[in-house]
Structures are given as C-alpha cells and as structure tokens.
C-alpha cells in the first residue's frame, strides 16, 4: 500500500507539461459505459495518451480501488504499471478535486466519505461518483443505508428531469438505463423479473396438480384407514356371534 501511495502522490505532484486536448462527449460516454460494463480492456483502449489526470481518473479509480491488485507482495518497481497508468506523453495536470480523490484512493484503512466537488468545482465524472458512493454505502452500511441515501437514484432523478425538459443527451439515456438496472438488481426491493407466460403456466399447472394430488392422497388415506376398520369390526362382530 505504501508503494501505491508513493506512486499516486508522484502522479499528483508532477508539474503540468502541456495543454491537453479536451475529451469529446462521445469519448466521455464510451469511458463511462466501459466502466459500467466492468470492461478494463475497453476502458484502457478508450483512454488515449496525452490526456490530463482528470481524464485518466476513471482508469486510476478502476485499477486501484474498484479492482485493486490482490497479489500479496507487490511486483518489483520496474514492473509497476506506472507507464500503463501514466504514459510518458500524458499531461499529468490534475485538478484539486481529482487530487483529493487520488489521495482518498491511496489512503489506507476504512474509507472516509468520497471527496465531492467544493464551491466552484465541477465533477468531471458524476456517474462514476454516484457509483462509488453507492458501492461504499452497500459495503459499509448495508441495504438500509443504500435505500436511505440512494445516490444512484438521485442521479437518475436528475437525468429524468433533464429528459422531461428535453435536454438529456442520448448518451445519458443509455447511462440512465444502466443505472436503473443496477438499482433494480435485487437490492432496492426488486423481486426479480416478472414471470414469463411459460413460468406462469408452469406455476398454475403445479398448483393444479398439487390440489389434485391432495384430494387423491386424502381419498387414498381414507380408504387405507376405513377398509381395515370396517373389516376388523365385522370380524369382531362375527366373533362375538360365534
């Protein structure tokens, strides 16, 4: 962990070297989608060199917190993924918010609240922020905490308001679908997908057969009990007569 802190701290201390090109909306959307799909290969392929730390942040978050290495002994420094995370050609400029978040990732022990934008700051990755908050609540507080705070729900609500106002982009609509899916997956009181017609038919068939079997069982038991008793009583009567 100490080596991770060192690496991440180095990333933050580097002086900006060049002006980086802004990511396009298409690129940002693709990055968010790759993150949502848990696709590190796609995520890496979508992050071109020459971007600043704010743009590289999804990759850093993914590799060092979302899916941290689990090898007990870290690899030798020469094989560290520094170059993968931070190519030589990359602009290493990081905003204050991104720096705080990198510090948060690097901090050992239980995680405090995820750093949020302060006055005058803009969150470059609001969907990822909601995902991180949601995951933290799931892991630390449980279902009740997620339901109470519901960061993904609040984000979805914002998207829906924009949708109603006609200002939601197609990209955001895709992301909204994903957010709703994640919220549906069993943890917000979702009971699973509704039964298909085949499943409904099978359930009804099972119930009908169970009812029929119950009636048959009762008749069978009645006969099994009544016939010997009748025979036994008749035997006793004939015995008394004789």
């Amino acid at each position, binding site marked *: 962990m100490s080596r991770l802190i060192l690496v991440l701290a180095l990333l933050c201390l580097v002086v900006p070297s060049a002006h980086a090109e802004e990511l396009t909306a298409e690129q940002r959307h*693709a990055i968010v*989608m790759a993150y*949502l*799909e*848990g*696709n590190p*290969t*796609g995520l890496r392929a979508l992050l071109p060199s020459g971007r600043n730390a704010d743009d590289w942040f999804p990759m850093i978050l993914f590799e060092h917190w979302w*899916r*941290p*290495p*689990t*090898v*007990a*002994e870290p690899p030798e420094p020469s094989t560290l993924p520094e170059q993968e995370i931070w190519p030589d050609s990359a602009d290493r400029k990081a905003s204050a918010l991104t720096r705080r978040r990198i510090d948060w990732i690097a901090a050992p*022990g*239980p*995680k405090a609240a995820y750093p949020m934008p302060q006055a005058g700051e803009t969150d470059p990755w609001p969907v990822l922020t909601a995902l991180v908050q949601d*995951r933290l609540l*799931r*892991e*630390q*507080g*449980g*279902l*009740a905490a*997620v339901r109470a705070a519901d960061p993904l729900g609040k984000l979805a609500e914002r998207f829906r308001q924009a949708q109603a106002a006609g200002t939601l982009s197609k990209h955001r609509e895709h992301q909204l679908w*994903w957010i709703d*899916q*994640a919220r549906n*997956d*069993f*943890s917000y009181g979702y*009971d*699973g*997908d509704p039964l298909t017609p085949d*499943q409904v038919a*099978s*359930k009804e*068939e*099972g*119930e009908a*057969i*169970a009812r029929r*079997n*119950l009636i*048959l*069982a009762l008749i*069978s*038991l009645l*006969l*099994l*009990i009544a016939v*010997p*008793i009748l*025979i*036994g009583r008749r*035997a*006793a009567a004939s*015995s008394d007569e004789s």
Partner: protein
Amino acid sequence: MTTAGAHAGRLAIAGVSGFLVLSLEFAAVRLFAPAFGQSTYVWSTVIALVLAALAAGYAFGGRLGDRATSLRPLSLAHLGAALWTVIVLAGGPSLVAALVPAGLPEAGGLPMAFVAGLIATLVLFVPPAFLLGMTSPYLIRFDARAGHTGEAAGSIYAFGTVGSLIACYATPIILLQDLGTSGTFLLCAVLAAAMGGLGLLLSRPSPGGSGAEDRALSQPEGPVLRRWLVVALVVGLGVTVVEFAAVRFMAPWFGQSNHVWAHVIGVLMLALALGSWLGGRYADRPGSLGALWVVLNTSAFWIYIAAGLAPLLLEWLAPTTLTSVTVLGAARWGSLAATAILFGVPFLLLGMTTPFLVRKASENASVGKSAGAVLAWGTVGGIAGCLLTPTVLVPALGSRGTLLIAGAAIVAVAGWGIHRERKWGFDSGMVPAAGLLACVFAIWFFHGTPLRSHEGQITEIESRYQTVRVVERNDGLLLPTPRPAWGAPTGKIPVRFLRHDEDAETFQSSYLLVPTDRVVPTLSADTNAFVRQPLPAAPAGDPLTGGQYFEHMALGAHYVRYDEDKPIRVLIIGYAGGTVHSVLHRTKPRNTKLDVLGIEIDPAVIDVADEYLGHKALRAVYDDEKAGRLRLVTGEDARTVINALPEDDRFELILVDAYARTNYIPFQLATREFFDKLEAHLAPGGWIGVNVLGDGTKSPVAKSVAMTMTDAVGATYIVPNPSYPGNVLLWTSADVKHAPRVGSPGLAQLLMRRAAYATERVLVRYDPKAETDERVVVLTDDKAPSDKLADEELGI
C-alpha cells in the same frame, strides 16, 4: 382404576414409548451430526444399534412380564430411561466432542466416524432404547386374556406404531427445529418420566380389584418355535427394506424432502398400526395360519406390481413438465398419495403378521416370552434391512431391484409356510420357487431401465444418497443474459448436466459441449458493439457455465490475497462433479496455481462426472492430480473432515456448496460452531464463500446463514446473482476489513464479467441489527431451524 381405564393407560404407555424411541433416534443423529456428520454410516450405526437394543429389550421385557404381577418394574424401567435421557442431555455433548475423530481418512480404511459413532451410540442411546424396548411385550402380556393373545398384541403394537408415526412427523419437522436438540431430549425425558408415573399409578390396587387383572392366564412353558421367529425375521427385513427402498424409488419424482420422508414413513407406520390391530382381530380365530400365508403372499404380489407399474402413477402425479420449484407442491401431496396407493396395502398386510405370530408362538410358550421373541426377531430383520438397503442393495440393484428382492423374500417364507401346512391340495413347494423365479425374471426385465427418463437423458444411477441423472440439452444454457452489456445476441449452447432426484431444471455440475463452434458474443473495444468471435482455446470443452453460480464462487480466487510464488489453497465443501474446480482453473488470476482439497459425501457423483462430463480429463489437463495439488475426500460428511483437519492446514479460499436432499443445506454445515472451525483454517487475506439457493436476498435461510457468519467470523456480504434469480453468495473474511474486491489480473473472460458485476454493483453488507424478519436467527449446533425455514421458503 377401572379395567377399561387401565387398558387405556397401557395403550397410552405403548404409544408414548413408540414416540420416544423414534424421537431419541432422530435427536441422536442430530446430536452426532456436528461431530460425526450425517453420512449413511452414522445413520446406519445409530439405527442398527438402537434396533439391537430394542430387540434385546423386547426379549427381556417379555420374560419380565411373564413373571411380574404389576406394571411397577416396567415403570421403573421408564423412569430409568428418563434419567438416562437427562444424563444424555447433560453429558452427551461432552462425550461426543471427546470422540471427534482426528486426521483425514486413509484409502480403504474405516469411515472416519464409524467407531466414534458406535461408541457414542452404545454409551448414550443403547440403554434408554433397551429400557423402552421392554414396553410392548410387557404390556402385551398384561393385556392378554385367555384366548385373546393376538388381539392384545395387535392393540399394543398398533398404539406403539402410532406413537412412532407421530414422532416421525413431529421430531424432525417441529421439535428439532423449534426446541433444538437439547430441548427435544428434555421433552423426551419428561415424557418418559410421565410414562413411568402413569405406570406406577396403574400399578396401585384399585378399590374392589387386585390391580393385576387377568393374572390367572394359564401359560405353556415350552420354547418359542423357531419357524415363527424365522417368519418374524423375514417380515422385519421386508418392512425395513421396502421402507428405505420406497423413498428412493419415488425420489426421481418427489425428491427426498423432510415432508416426503415423513409422508412415506408416516403412511407406512399408519398401515402397520392398522395391520397390527386388524391382525389381532383375526389371529385368535381357529385356522388363522392359512390366512397368514395368504396375507404374506398378497403383500409380496402387491410389492411386485408396485415395482413394475409405479412409474406410470408417479409420472402422472409429478409430470416432467413441472419445474424444480413448482414440482415441490405436487411432490408433497403426491408422495402421500403414492405411498398410500403403492405401499399402504402391503404394509397393512405385513403389519397383520405380528399378532398372528405372537398368537401362534404363544401356543407353545408363555405370552410375554412369545411376544418378546417375535418382536426381537422382527427387529433383527429390521437391523439387517437398514444396514443393507442404503449401502448395498440400492447401489447394487437399484431401488426397484431392491423392492423385488424384498418381495421375493416374503414370497419365499410364505411359500415355505404353505408347504409346511400341506393341506391345500397341491404341491405347495412350487409356490416359493415360482415366486423366486418371478423375481429373477423381473430383475432381468428391468435391468438397465432407468426409473425415470428426461428429455436428453443419457444415464441414471442410484447412489447411496440419491438418484443421479446425466442429461444433455441443446438449449441447456443461454449465453449470454438478455442485458445490453452482454446480451444483444443470445446463443444456445449444448450442455451436459448432472441432475439429482426430482431436479427438473437445476443441476449440480455442468459441462459445455462446444468443441468446434465455440463462439459467444463479445464486446468489441473498437465499436463498443457486440460481435461474435471465438473464445480463447480451452481444453476438451469449456468449464464456464455462462453466469451460473459456479463463476460467482470461482470469483473468490480474485478476492483473496495471494502470493504469486505459491498456489492458492482452496477448500471446496461439496465438490460434486468438480465444476467449481474446473471454473476456478479457467478463471483464476494469471500466473497462479491452485492447491485444492475437495470434500464430497457421495463418491458416485464424482465417478459419474468423470465418466460423462469429462471432469477427470479436465483435471488431468490442469495437471493438479499429477502435481499432488488435488486431494479428494469422498464418502465422508464435510463436517467430520473439517473437524479432523490438522490445525496448520490453511486455505486462502473456502467454498461451501453443500446441499442434501436437493433443497436443504445440511444444518451442521451452517452453524456458528462450523464457521468458527472454518475461520481457524482461513489463511491471512482469505475469504469464505457460501452458496445459498432460495428466495434471493429475502431468503430467511440465506439471511440466517449470513447472520451466523457475521456472528462467528465478521462482516458478511451478500452477493445476489442477477442472472440466476434466487441464488445468493455469502462472503466473509476474518481479517480483511473491507468488502470483497475483484483483482484486475486474469479476469478477461467475458462470462466472468457478470460475476464481477454482481460483486461490484449489487453486493450488500448484511446488517443483523437492521433485520426485521423474526424467523432469521443465528444457527447453532444445538438449534438450527434451517430445514424448517427452507420448507417455508419452498412453500412445502
């Protein structure tokens, strides 16, 4: 007390005694399970020794009854049984704990818990069983009036059987679940003491009476003729063999849930009780012997018919069109109807034989001695039946062959009796010969015919524990799930499954049959769209199952802290066909090796998987066995093996995937004490994962196990499986202070992304303090109502 009142009192004592014997037997197995497991060896040891003690008690009780003038000696025996049960309650757990076997079993050696179970049963349960066994013959002697011995035997035996019937429902389904093991022992002790008190009350002289009614019964003093004992032996054997085989015979349709077992045993006991009562009405008539042989032959004939034609009825009661869940309701009542129709009549007829035999035997010997001897020899037959049926007969002959053999034995003894009578005007020696010939023909005729056939079924075997079917389906697995990230195209992949008992759609092991056209939809990084492209080369079939729970369990290898220089040590409890092991190999972190200890109670499952699912070939490819990195312990209950593991045997990953009778987690593998033991074998940075199939995150079983894991180990996380509704995995770690996190390396497989998604997006920490379901409790070795919760969840 009036004569009628005393008679009613004696019947009540017989009933309570029958209840106590069976309750103590169930509670004994429950007490032993955390130490010795619940393998067939443990069950057989307990049942056989208890039956042997009962047989000795019958013989002794009969002789004691002949000499006694009141119920006082029997009452003292019952008070002794009560006292011993209190001793079991107080000292039993300590004795059992002291007998826990150490060290893993050696090949070819005795089963691990065999000797320990033997000693514990001898010390703890043989004495009360012996004392309670005295009851029936003693009471028969006291109830018998001149010329009505058979009637007395029938009544007493019938009430004793009704008591056992109540116990077979009440003890496993209610008492052990709600009162726990110690509570059940306490109740048994109280009932035994109350029974002793009632006996003492009945022993008091009543005003105007002697207190020893009908003591003037004249009794012959000769020995009990051997022929009646042989018949009792064969009938006892037949009853037990048919009882065990009937459950297994119907299991492919109804499964082996608690309710199915209770229905089968309950109906059989009801029929035996009615038969005893009815037999008592006829036994005292002159010329009843001919009726006895007719009764035996008719019962055997009915068993033959049931063995041959039953599948038609069973298929109608639980058709293959039903799913694994919807079949349960049909199975619950279907098993009751089927048992009554198929086996009610033969058991009624077999039940009639006891009073006949007591009556006949008492023509030459005293009543008590005769009753004791007949019951004892019948019980000896029962011991042979309970030892042979699950371990030898069913695995060797199948349940249908076992039923036929039981019928043949009954025909043989009936034919022998007819032959001895020599009064029916034909060569009666041909009767047993014809019966045996019919049996041989029937076994030959049905040989190799499966009990039940499913679409695509390749084979079916009956093991000691269950019916296992290999089924191949072209649409066996849908790849991938219909979710946009993975799912625009849907591929149907041919798959082989292992299915068990009534399983219609779920399975324990699977094997994708994709040798040449191994293509699945894969996300293209360039276009962010789905394309079809080949999977990476995989040896002899791909073990990935398309997002079923196997991948979710195998993902644990990405949670654990591991050292690249050492193999990741994995303990798999419930190895089954080895699917989890194969998936682990396919998906483990890059540059790692595995060192696996697998535990599987049913060796036949591994054999079938090796032969039909290619798992042996997969294991050979992965070279585990050659490198000594796979240890398989089969035929043993996992709890016994865990108890015996050396202290320094540690694992980074412990996976618990153990189910019994299709739908139940064995309680001894879900308790606080069990997880304490697992924690002791967890390496630093290791994780314990438990698979629970039920009602998803709402499942009281899953939440009870989660609460237990939290109590025993620490924070527990529930990971629902979005593509397999109802299934959840529970994860906990002793020293990792955060939720499980998927490590990056080696998780390239598309199909594993679904498992990772579940961990990262739908995992929740279980919070016991926020639990509102009152049924959810910490499970302990003493009280673990997991079966009851499972039944409620399944709606049965």
